[in-house]
């Protein structure tokens, strides 16, 4: 679903060039959760943004669902993001003046889905936000906000979710809830790239990548007991019409 090949990203800082990612390669298959761990400043978030077609790499290649986003014109890249990727952030990034339902529906403004409203209602129900549908983000608890952000990420039936510290601001109960939803997404052949410091989150990953100074220095399989989808399943999910896109997620 997602493949980064020898990606390097550098920035110009006040003291010269900063290498945020240094020749990093990874792949996330459909039906797989890959966690990225590492100390602050190790390049995890930059890696996620490069993977999300939001930040073009200085070197290397990125492939999402078999497509190279950085070879596309901006319009097609935006369309790829709208249809294929769901983002979840530590700070939720909900739009403050839209209700829970409207926030979940927001991606439909970028990419029209005929059944977006019905699907939004399904997600609201499934995420336990039925009594909060008309509330603004400021009226929600942190757990509810993150569930709303998750609903927004899932609206367009993406094949890939990129989550940046999704449990960073949550208590243990809400952490478990969010991770459970990510697991369910994975079960529907969705692919998840999870940037986290949280060891509880890492437990749910199929693989854990360790980053230091922009490099991926370790790739370990987690102790998760659930079966990892076969490569065949993964290849199947790579097609945009993956089963994840047809399920409730």
């Amino acid at each position, binding site marked *: 679903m997602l493949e980064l090949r020898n990606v390097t990203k550098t920035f110009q800082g006040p003291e010269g060039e900063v290498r945020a990612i240094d020749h990093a390669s990874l792949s996330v298959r459909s039906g797989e959760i890959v966690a990225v761990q590492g100390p602050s400043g190790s390049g995890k978030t930059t890696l996620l943004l490069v993977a*999300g077609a939001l930040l073009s790499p200085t070197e290397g290649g990125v492939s999402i669902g078999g497509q190279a986003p950085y070879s596309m014109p901006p319009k097609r890249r935006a369309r790829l993001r709208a249809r294929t990727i769901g983002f979840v952030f530590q*700070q939720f990034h909900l*739009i403050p003046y839209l209700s829970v339902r409207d926030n979940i529906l927001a991606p439909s403004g970028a990419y029209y889905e005929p059944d977006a409203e019905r699907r939004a209602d399904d997600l609201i129900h499934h995420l336990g936000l039925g009594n909060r549908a008309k509330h603004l983000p400021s009226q929600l608890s942190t757990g509810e906000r993150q569930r709303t952000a998750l609903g927004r990420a899932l609206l367009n039936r993406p094949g890939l979710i990129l989550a940046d510290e999704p449990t960073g601001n949550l208590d243990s109960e809400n952490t478990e809830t969010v991770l459970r939803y990510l697991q369910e997404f994975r079960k529907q052949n969705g692919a998840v790239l999870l940037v986290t410091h949280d060891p509880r989150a890492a437990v749910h990953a199929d693989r854990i990548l360790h980053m230091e100074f922009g490099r991926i220095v370790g790739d370990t399989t987690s102790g998760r007991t659930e079966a990892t989808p076969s490569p065949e399943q993964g290849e199947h999910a790579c097609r945009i019409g993956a089963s994840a896109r047809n399920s409730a997620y």
Partner: protein
Amino acid sequence: MKLIGIMMKEILYRKLACALTALATAIAVGSCVGAVVLLDSHDRQTAKLLARKEAEMKARMASLNDEMRKAALKLGFNLLILPSDQNLRDWHTEDYAAKDMPEEYVSTLAASGIVTVRHFLPSLQKRLVWPEIKRTIILVGTRGEVPNMHKDPRQPLVQPVPTGTIVLGYELHRSLGLAVGDTVRLMGRDFTVHLCHNERGSKDDISAWISLREAQELLGKPGRVNTILALKCLCMGSQDIALLRQEIVRILPGTQAIEVGSRVVARAEARLKLKKQSKQMIEAERENRAQLRVQRELLVSILVPSIVVACAVWIAHMGFADVKERDAEIAILKAIGYRSGQVLLLFLSKSIAVGLVGGTAGLLAATCAGYWYGNRTVGETAGGGAGLLTTQPGLCATALSVACLLAVIAGWLPAFVATQRDPADALRNE
């Protein structure tokens, strides 16, 4: 979720910021419309003021015309008939005629059939020193008017002085302390004061009138007069007066007739003078109003662009603040697939919507102000109030277009900046 829905909810959420932006637009549009209304009111006020002054002038002229017509009808011109050998220069300097003529000339004229004269007033005048009191006076002997025999007899304009009485001018009775009924001695003869005139500011103030017969006796000129005043000469043009003078001289050979100043002439002159002055006043008023308009145009040409520019800067500032505040929001919109064009549209549509609201508010405020100002200065709507909306739809459409244009121009740069923001920057730096 449509863009317009997101835009409307954002406006409702950020009411204060949007209200301040709308206020700036309202001020800009209000100042533009207000300037137009101000100048329009000025023009209407000028037209009304000048029309009123012209109407006043016409009314006064009409009144004077009427008075002159009545005066001409009732009084006519006065001609003074003097002996032909009377030197007119002496007559002007001495205030009386030294030469005399037969009193019967009056009867001759009255019976002559001359139709343009109503009355004749013979008199014998002489400047002399009042012997008893040593005062220089003009003694006038008069017998009252002799009506034209060919006219209907009317109430005489000048009453005769009864025999044995005297009429005194203001200066004489005031300085001598005389009143009606007092007896006064003149040239050895006693007279009872019959009438004391009010001040006239002329030689009349030092004149004394007695009956013609007594004057002839006192002055030793029985049956003689030295002036015959022809009253109520009914001629309206100078040509008619010349003909009348010729006719009198023909009837009374050995005389000359001169025109004496009359109220009609004075009024005609006053009328002409007033007309000239009124026209000058109106021209001066017109000039003043034109100068005032130039001053107002200058003020408007400086003030309005300044206000519009200040408002545009304010709107742009609000726009940049909005973009900064919504940095993460713009980033997430892009992250979930919104294109730069959609983000631009989101910002610009908001600018236009707020601009329209502000423009409408500014237009309404300006029309209300115009209504109030027009009522106060012109006494009518002066293009304000409902009048502006109904009579000047072009102005309203222009005002709203200006509001939208201002909003788009001022909002374009912030919106463009918003589209150029790298979402990764906002999301990476959270």
